């Protein structure tokens, strides 16, 4: 590591998460001299505390589910008891994380990108101070500081028994009773994981349904599925206060009633990490650094891709925005179009969605059509015993444009990529239903749902009433 040197870079990237490392690599591919500053470990939230560790745990939950259902299919396990070695579970997860973060380090190295481990702070004239000592300067800065957990002003929230997604991933002891405040993506994924690990879960959600941003039917069907797993879901409920009592924690609603538990997980959202803003005065909106489609901030030559701008707080959106920022920092003039960025939730079964929800589509288009195919009618799903869920397709009747696809079911997070690609390519409903899909596959359901939107699915009963 170099110290005290003032180097001139084409691009300085702050943050080594998906947005930052993608930006650094892209800028380097385009011939730029690049430095990347990361205060913790490259890979960011996604690799260290987000997507990857949670998906490692979700796989455990799936395997537990498979073990539990094996007997149904005639696979008799002699001693059906199994228990979890949490130390090993955490170790396994850490190995996965380290493999990937080492991979990212290796990539950065292969491109000759200088990586500084330290706290970056922006200064005027596109220079960045590292750990209050070294200053490096560049022609452009890509500020990809990402996001951190937001803590609601709930009374008693400082209690160490209350965790965020950061701490719960290293929790060595599975809580008997776990209350999850916030029924968004992170909340429901953690509910699945810890429910499988043996916790009794209560999810408390302020809105009238879990996953309130998603298409309503997705929320409704998921709610039913989670309930059959014994997960308690309280919606339209607000926790005011959490108190430690003899038997553990108690979360109080405004009416004085409460829920008792051993541990609480706060998953009420994430806010930008503005620790590198320093003396600069960015235009912000609710704490998010404002950028245009070119990822330009209000300050010239500073770009802000990823979670920090709040446009779409997902890793793949961060990759795209990071690349766009790098291209523009290196003199190109390209936009990030996030319209067809899918959103995935790794529940069991999982969720994949892209485009407009039915409610949004109704507002924007005069005449929409919807198609639906339930996995229970899909051969692969039935053979696998993964029959819960559906594919729902929303289209514009006039031009046949696919406006939104919402999948709850097996491999939804994989199938949704097909929908996203087709929507980005502006393939119409008519065409999708004419493409050949392998059989038996889960993704046939998507094709059938497109056909259903036109009233011509082969594997659904004849429509009695012709859709008008």
């Amino acid at each position: 590591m170099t110290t005290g040197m003032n180097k001139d870079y084409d691009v300085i990237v702050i943050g080594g998460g998906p947005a930052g490392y993608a930006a650094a690599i892209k800028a380097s591919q385009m011939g730029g001299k690049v430095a990347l500053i990361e205060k913790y470990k490259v890979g960011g939230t996604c690799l260290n505390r987000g997507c990857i560790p949670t998906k490692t745990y979700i796989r455990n939950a799936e395997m537990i589910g498979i073990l539990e259902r094996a007997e149904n299919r005639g696979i008799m396990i002699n001693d059906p008891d199994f228990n979890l070695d949490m130390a090993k579970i955490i170790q396994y997860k850490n190995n996965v994380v380290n493999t990937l973060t080492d991979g990212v380090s290796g990539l950065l190295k292969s491109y000759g990108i200088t990586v500084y481990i330290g706290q970056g702070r922006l200064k005027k004239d596109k220079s960045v101070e590292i750990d209050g000592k070294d200053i490096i300067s560049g022609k452009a800065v890509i500020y990809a500081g990402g996001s951190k957990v937001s803590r609601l002003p709930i009374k008693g929230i400082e209690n160490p028994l209350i965790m965020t997604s950061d701490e719960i991933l290293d929790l060595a002891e599975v809580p008997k009773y776990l209350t999850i405040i916030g029924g968004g993506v992170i909340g429901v994924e953690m509910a699945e994981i810890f429910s499988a690990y043996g916790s009794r879960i209560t999810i408390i959600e302020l809105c009238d349904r879990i996953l309130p941003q998603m298409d309503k039917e997705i929320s409704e069907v998921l709610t039913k599925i989670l309930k059959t797993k014994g997960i308690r879901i309280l919606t339209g409920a607000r926790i005011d206060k959490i108190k430690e009592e003899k038997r553990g924690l108690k979360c109080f609603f405004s009416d004085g009633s409460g829920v008792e538990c051993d541990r609480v997980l706060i998953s009420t959202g994430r806010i930008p990490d503005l620790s590198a803003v320093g003396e600069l005065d960015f235009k912000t909106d609710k704490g998010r650094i404002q950028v245009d489609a070119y990822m330009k901030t209000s300050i010239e030559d500073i770009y802000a891709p990823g979670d920090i701008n709040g446009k779409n707080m997902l890793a793949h959106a961060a990759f795209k925005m990071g690349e766009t920022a790098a291209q523009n920092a290196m003199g190109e003039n390209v936009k990030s179009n996030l319209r067809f960025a899918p959103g995935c939730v790794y529940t069991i079964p999982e969720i994949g969605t892209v485009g407009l929800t039915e409610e949004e589509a109704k507002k924007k288009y005069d005449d929409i059509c919807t198609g639906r195919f339930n996995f229970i009618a899909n051969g692969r799903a039935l053979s696998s015993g993964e029959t819960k869920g559906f594919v729902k397709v929303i289209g514009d009747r006039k031009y046949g444009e696919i406006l939104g696809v919402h999948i709850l079911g097996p491999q939804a997070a994989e199938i949704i990529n097909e929908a996203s690609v087709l929507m980005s390519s502006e393939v119409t409903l008519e065409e999708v239903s004419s493409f050949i899909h392998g059989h038996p596959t889960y993704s046939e359901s998507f094709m059938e749902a497109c056909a259903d939107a036109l009233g011509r699915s082969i594997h659904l009963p004849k429509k009695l009433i012709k859709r008008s």
Partner: protein
Amino acid sequence: MAVEVIMPKAGMAMEEGTIVKWYKKEGDQVEAGEALLEIITDKVNMEVEAEVSGVLLKIVGKEGQVLPVFTPIAYIGKEGEEVETETTGKNPEQPEKKEKEELKKENVSVSEKKVRATPAARKTAKESDLELRDIKGSGPKGRIQKKDVLSLRTSVNKMTPLAEKIAALEGVDPALLEGSGYDGKITKEDVMKQIGQRTKEKGKPVKGKIVPLTPMRKTIGKRMSDSFFTAPTFTLNIEVDMRKTKEMKNTLKAAIEEETGFTPTITDILVMACAKNLKKHPAVNTAITEEGLLIYDDVNIAFAVGLEEGLFVPVIKNADKLTLSEIVTISRELVSKAEHMSLRPDEQEGSTFTISNLGMYGISHFNPIINPPNSAILGVGAITDRPIVRKGEIRINPMMNLSMTIDHRAIDGAPGARFMQNLKELLEDPIKLLT
């Protein structure tokens, strides 16, 4: 030195050409091979390209002009360079020689390159990865022009299926579209932009900002258009001499102020006069209902109060039974409530007749729209001193116009006119209000 651009001789038989359209304007930077303008000969449309790079200094050939071949039509040179234009009418110099040169050039291009194409077409084809051999030229002798390349480019798989479908349904010519998608692919957005432009060209929207309609605005809008579009109306106008009413108002002023704390207005007296008069003319105090014509027993007079927030029409109930002081008190109370947005629904319902006074704005007369379910509304204009003739003499008296809009389904012209006539009499001799 500036280089001339001439009307080309595009074929042995061509003698003159018409300038269809200039693609460039004076001052534009042009590249050698770039299309400058389109001309039309007796046979074909073709593009004329710049032979050299530089600034298009001057355009002498105007769109629509028919010019003999070899006539200079523009000049290209260095920025700021002066151009010595030839005076028109002078014979183009040595056409024969140029013609020969041109012919020679053409022959060379044929023998060397086989495919005839303009340099601009070649450039575009190369950029678009298209083979010239695949393109059908629309220029003279099948020469390929830039637009031929462009139209092929769009037709070769460079549109998304959705864009193609929308373009077909909406009748948009893909050749006009510039693709914004990957590698110039035409997307829905590009087609929609073209459709947007088309509609814009039809009528450019006038700039302004949209203020969302308040629920009140919507209600007013709905009530008024319901009224306007269901009731066949006509309006009766009459001029009233207000000298005596004004005198009466002044006489009573002090007493009423003492009693009520409010100053009486002409509107108050009008409410009283109308109320009395409606009692005598029940035909005007009516409503059309599903069952038939409803002739009201009560006389409830609504009066319009225009405020920033919208239009309120509070109702003075049983106005025929009220003294002037009572009318003054009740109406001030209602106005004050309207101003504080605290009118109760029942205070705005049950009217049988409406008065709308715009006199304070200097309006001389206007056509009010009926306030349903009423059958008539009285519009009151400003009182202004005007010369009138009384007993052969010119006098200057305070005059006022009254206009009553009537629903012809309920009220005929004659009863309406009689109402107005009597109202005029009452106001011109307000002592009659006591009867």
